[in-house]
């Protein structure tokens, strides 16, 4: 039987790794991969609290599961649009590096 704290600490560590990746990587694709890490950390937290809530209040806790499903859907939509934008920007600028994507610069 695993303490709740282990899940929360592991999820926090995974979230911070993803945050570091988003802030420090140059490549747009790897920024998206880091965002995926952060979303996964959130899902671990949600399911850990689902388990905690279920053992306190009995079976039939639907809300956390719906929340996790929404995170999955939004993650899939985000990756589809994000990768399409990266490919489109790559066609114009021949680079996936976010520092060199300066199309909006005045």
């Amino acid at each position, binding site marked *: *039987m695993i303490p709740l704290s282990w899940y929360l600490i592991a999820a926090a560590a995974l979230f911070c790794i993803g945050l570091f990746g988003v802030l*420090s990587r140059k490549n747009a694709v790897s920024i998206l991969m880091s965002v995926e890490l952060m979303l996964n950390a959130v899902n671990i937290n949600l399911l850990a609290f689902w388990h905690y809530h279920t053992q306190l209040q009995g*079976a039939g806790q639907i809300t956390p599961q*719906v929340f996790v499903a929404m995170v999955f859907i939004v993650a899939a939509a985000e990756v*589809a649009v994000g990768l399409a934008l990266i490919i489109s920007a790559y066609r114009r600028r021949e680079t996936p590096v976010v520092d060199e994507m300066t199309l909006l610069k005045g």
Partner: protein
Amino acid sequence: MSGLQIVFLIVAVVTLFSGVMVVASRKMMHSALWLILTLLGVAILFATLQAGFFAIVQVLVYIGAISILIIFTLMLTRRVMDDEHPQVIKGWWLPAVMAVILFGLIAGFLATWEDFQVMLNELPADAENLAAFGSALVNPAGYVIPFEVASVLLLAALVGAIYIAVERKEKTR
């Protein structure tokens, strides 16, 4: 220390290590492969939480679809393959310090919660109750509106992705 705890520790260490490799490895393709290992570790963590359905969905959606999309994009954007230049910005230590501080804040804040050390006991076999979950998603008294909005969001995102990514011929006048 029980067997499940040992499994958890091994999986958590592998997941966090491969997560670090995702953000640290210099070759983008290696980074994507480490990402798959991380997602698999998260799926096993879901399974240890007795959320079997979401462990399966994690493997199907993340490993089966999202990471394949990411790998395709890596192969379509050629310059990512070069590994001579560093993949992180020059002042990378500042985000590192910020991430460590944030981790300390989250852990310190959680540690003040009285139920932080509570044990997650084994749930009865019907605790996940997928039938109730499924009917709540289409129940007007439940979550049908968020569910439908999410469906429309996904459809719109996929149509938009095709529209953005399709290669158009230059306009001839």
